[in-house]
């Protein structure tokens, strides 16, 4: 045991020379090494780029979901999420808004009144969700005002202004200044209707949201349904930093235990699923790429071992022990894998940076992507962590690939190996 330990320590001392020999050995057959390096580099490049594209898509989707749709945290009446009925409102929501607004880590808070309704133009009708907002407050929380493509964000229209999505505008065939009629249920159960004038049309990545959601002034809506204008159905909270989301959510839950407090991940589980599933799908894709490359590396290294039988025999004869022979072959394989990996990562990174500026235009398939809530132009996001993860995976692949050729080398008998003609 002590002998083995001493030997291992001695091996470590020798490592500098072994590393250098292993590195030079790779370049003995330049063409062969370059072929396998190219295969590795292209595989890694494709993996890194795809990962960055997916990462970009997820970040865009999450940002859009937070900034335009849900914000970070929402508070509702305990029963509202199960049954979004107008009667499940939060009373004194304006006071609560002010309390939350003064909390550390909170950027802005807004109160919304939400009513399901029918919207109708002269031509046709459709079901929508009317969100009654305080435009100045909403501006602090969501970026709806930036998404106006026609008309203006509530400005300019005097009475009953409404902001609707591009999709529903097309469906109803209405323009800015067109009139639409909203039909909804009042607090007392009676049906009421009112005419609104289109002040602005917004366009966002999520076409389903665009088709389903219209915005009116909070005061217009409360007076229509007979609700007092200090209450609301939803309090939306925007935070300084998404990372504090869970902490602040917990604080709010404790403080307002009569209300239902949810983070955006709970409100839109499909969005958080996208974020979480990217890593899993990328591990799968890269796993498949690396699995294919594994055989390429094994083949290359096996050839490298078999054409050096005589030399390996000589090394063992003159006193290079098995640990060192094994380490040398392992190092050669790992060097090969890591070199290919570095080239692939650099290429992938450069392409990602390039595409980050130009974006990848998916407008050919825009319909499908928009319905899923994605922008049609994807901006990949380079991530150091991705490079680290890929490097570790390639390193492990290299190690696994090295084992068989290295064992093959160990099985050589010096006297026989020295007699071979290779």
């Amino acid at each position: 045991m002590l002998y083995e330990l001493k030997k291992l320590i001695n091996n470590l001392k020798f490592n500098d020379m072994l590393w250098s020999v292993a590195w030079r050995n790779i370049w003995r057959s330049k063409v062969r090494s370059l072929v396998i390096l190219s295969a590795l580099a292209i595989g890694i490049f494709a993996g890194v780029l795809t990962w960055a594209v997916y990462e970009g898509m997820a970040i865009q989707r999450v940002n859009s979901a937070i900034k335009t749709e849900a914000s970070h945290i929402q508070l509702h009446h305990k029963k509202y999420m199960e049954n979004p009925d107008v009667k499940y409102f939060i009373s004194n929501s304006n006071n609560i808004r002010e309390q939350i607004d003064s909390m550390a880590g909170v950027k802005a808070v807004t109160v919304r009144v939400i009513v399901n309704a029918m919207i109708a133009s002269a031509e046709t009708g459709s079901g929508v969700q009317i969100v009654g907002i305080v435009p100045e407050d909403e501006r602090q929380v969501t970026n709806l005002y930036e998404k106006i493509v026609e008309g203006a964000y509530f400005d300019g229209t005097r009475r009953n202004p409404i902001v609707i999505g591009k999709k529903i505008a097309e469906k109803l065939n209405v323009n800015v200044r067109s009139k639409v009629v909203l039909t909804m249920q009042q607090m007392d159960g009676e049906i009421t209707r009112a005419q609104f004038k289109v002040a602005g049309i917004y366009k966002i990545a999520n076409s389903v949201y665009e088709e389903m959601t219209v915005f009116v002034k909070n005061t217009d809506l409360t007076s229509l349904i007979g609700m007092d204008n200090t209450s609301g159905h939803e309090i939306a909270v925007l935070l300084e930093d998404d990372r504090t989301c869970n902490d602040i959510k917990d604080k709010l839950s404790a403080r307002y235990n009569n209300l239902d407090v949810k983070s955006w991940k709970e409100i839109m589980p499909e969005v958080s699923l996208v974020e979480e599933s990217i890593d899993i799908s990328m591990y799968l894709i890269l796993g498949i790429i690396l699995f294919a490359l594994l055989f390429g590396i094994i083949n290359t290294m096996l050839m490298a071992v078999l054409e050096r039988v005589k030399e390996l025999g000589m090394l063992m004869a003159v006193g290079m022990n098995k640990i060192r022979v094994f380490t040398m072959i392992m190092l050669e394989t790992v060097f090969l894998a890591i070199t290919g990996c570095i080239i692939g990562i650099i290429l992938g990174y450069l392409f990602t940076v390039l595409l980050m500026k130009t974006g990848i235009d998916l407008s050919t398939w825009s319909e499908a992507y928009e319905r899923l809530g994605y922008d049609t132009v994807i901006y990949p996001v380079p991530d150091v962590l991705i490079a680290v993860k890929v490097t570790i995976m390639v390193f492990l692949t290299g190690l696994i690939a090295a084992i068989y050729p290295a064992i093959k080398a160990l099985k050589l008998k010096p006297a026989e190996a020295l007699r071979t003609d290779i």
Partner: protein
Amino acid sequence: MKVIDIKNLTKIYNDSEYKVNALNGIDLSFEEGEFAAVVGPSGSGKTTLLNIIGGLDQPSDGEVIIDHTNIKELKSSKLIDFRLRNIGFVFQAYNLIPVLTARENVEFIMHLQGRPKAEREKRVKDLLAAVGLSDRIDSRPAKLSGGQQQRVAVARALASKPKFILADEPTANLDSKSAENLLDIMEKLNKEEKTTFIFSTHDARVVKKARRVITIEDGRVVSDEVRK
């Protein structure tokens, strides 16, 4: 002082069809500082004898005792280490590491032995000077002639300060001049370093230089002549 003691060494190769008695009960011993040639026709058992003395092959019977150690009793990993510390090898086909320079090839063994850097550097310089290659220390084997490569191989074999050097047909691939030159160098180093040299050969030039000539035929020692 006795460096190698060989007792009743027998080697039988058992092929599926043939049974070949490569060595038939050889008894030999070598003293420190010998310059000995093992000669005999092809297939007489010279290489087998050297391989077994060098611990590269196992005898079917008998034993090899090197400096009080019966190498048959060493486990594989200890045997490799034993070779590293006690035996130097020179091969017919030079067998240098192609990716290393002359200097690095010689230094490699000392690296394996874990010798300190200063010692390594000095010995490499001295040995390459002794074999007349001071001006080629940074050349890789491919840039050296056969004779030069074999001189590097001799320097490499000596670098580890072994008890003896086994050289299997070291001049077989060399022209007369290179062979002559190599033999002179080995003879000089044998005297200066007091390292025992054992050759297997059927090269008359080597036989002429040897101070002891052991002739083997059919795996048996048929003559053992010590010259002055």
